[in-house]
């Protein structure tokens, strides 16, 4: 070792500072976000419906994921800047307060609740044509966001269920809409939650002096009641988060529950969130998703198309991206506003 070190020392001394500078570029994170093309994932890899298992499905239904890199290194920032396929943005004021681990937790909460929405919408639609299918759900209020000033920040986890708050004059509020009305007089109130393991806990949350808010964001979700739902399903863990696979997951689940194969042998992909009423919702990273689908050679790509006049409408933006990178969108890029639009489009393929 010493002999080699002695021999290499003049070179090492010369290169030490550039070497350390290069390592700094490679490992120092900065408060930006990079969206880059990712891949497509067949929904069958993550959702397993225990039903119709002999049914032959000739095509495939995939969600599209992109690489959303929070806090990239300087090197990634520079490489992304020169890549025609990436989009670089400064981190939003909401995201900048969260650690990368917290952003991951929020992303998985989004994904999990999106799958629940897909199941509810697809089962409800399938129940119309298949009386064997039944679906039930419960409505819960979950912790979706935490501000830096939230008291007991580390004790409350994303996804914990809000149960109640003991408000003024001993009034117990159990819904989001009532919280503001019963927490007027005092600076601190007792909030009760249920954690992921089912344990109930109560914490006294104080209002922030500057904003007069508790610093907790709650959101209402419908979650599948497995007791009265048939057939059963399994949702496997995956490394992919976010709600943008909702629309395509709904199509996949629906296809598993009905007799005919709605894929018609096509390699189907797409993006878009799903609402409980079956409406598609906007997603981010349109450019990267279009490129991902194009690179993957899909036959059809569904994307939310809700308002032709809106400059940031996903379909309108997708057409712009196609023009920018020289992709012909005709025949495979399809704008849809709802789950039903997709079903109707696929039904027309047969004709």
């Amino acid at each position: 070792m010493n002999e080699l070190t002695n021999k290499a020392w003049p070179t090492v001394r010369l290169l030490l500072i550039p070497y350390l500078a290069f390592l700094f570029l490679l490992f120092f994170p900065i408060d930006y976000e990079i969206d880059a093309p990712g891949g497509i994932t067949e929904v069958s890899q993550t959702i397993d419906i225990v039903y119709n298992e002999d049914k032959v499905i000739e095509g495939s239904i995939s969600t599209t994921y992109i690489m959303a890199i929070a806090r990239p290194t300087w090197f990634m920032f520079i490489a992304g800047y020169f890549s025609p396929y990436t989009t670089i943005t400064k981190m939003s004021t909401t995201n900048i307060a969260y650690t990368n681990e917290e952003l991951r937790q929020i992303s998985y909460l989004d994904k999990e609740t999106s799958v629940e929405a897909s199941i509810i919408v697809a089962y409800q639609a399938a129940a119309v044509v298949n009386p064997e299918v039944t679906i039930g759900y419960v409505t819960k209020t979950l912790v979706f966001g935490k501000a830096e000033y939230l008291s007991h920040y580390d004790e409350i986890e994303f996804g914990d269920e809000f149960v109640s708050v003991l408000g003024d004059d001993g009034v117990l509020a159990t819904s989001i809409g009532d919280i503001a009305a019963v927490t007027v007089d005092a600076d601190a109130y007792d909030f009760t939650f249920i954690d992921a393991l089912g344990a109930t806990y109560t914490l006294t949350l104080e209002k922030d002096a500057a904003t007069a808010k508790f610093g907790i964001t709650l959101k209402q979700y419908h979650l599948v009641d497995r007791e009265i739902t048939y057939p059963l399903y399994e949702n496997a863990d995956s490394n992919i988060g976010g709600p943008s696979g909702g629309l395509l997951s709904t199509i996949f689940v629906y296809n598993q529950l009905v007799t005919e194969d709605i894929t018609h042998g096509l390699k189907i992909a797409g993006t878009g969130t799903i609402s409980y009423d079956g409406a598609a919702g906007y997603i981010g990273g349109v450019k990267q998703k279009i490129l991902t689908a194009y690179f993957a050679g899909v036959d059809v790509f569904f994307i939310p198309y809700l308002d032709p006049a809106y400059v940031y409408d996903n379909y309108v933006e997708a057409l712009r991206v196609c023009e920018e990178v020289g992709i012909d969108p005709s025949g495979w890029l399809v704008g849809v506003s709802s789950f039903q639009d997709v079903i109707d489009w696929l039904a027309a393929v047969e004709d």
Partner: protein
Amino acid sequence: MDLKRRLFALKIKWETVRQEFKLRGLLDALFAGIVYATLITVPVVAVLIELMLISMHRLYFFAVLYILAAFGFVWLVNRLAYVALKLKRPDHESDAKGLLIVNACVWTGFVLITGILFLTVFIPALTA
């Protein structure tokens, strides 16, 4: 029979090298090779990982580059280990270089098999 003879010749070569450099000297040279090769390879691998993250659609291309980088690492370790041995005893007579080439070939084969497994089994399974 031929393979048996080759293995025997290799064993003799190993014994000669060991007698000349002693086990401690050999391990020291190998350690030096690993340390310096790692210092050189870490930035290369970090660059590849970071470029791959923003170019996932070229995953296989980057997987091949990783395999090539692993080949480079193996050969660099052995090359630097040989340089270290030569610096220890410039007048050495045993075939340390030949022995390290065999060592590099064995590790290259291991990297190649692992790389092929990644390209054909693990990556398709992870991205399916």
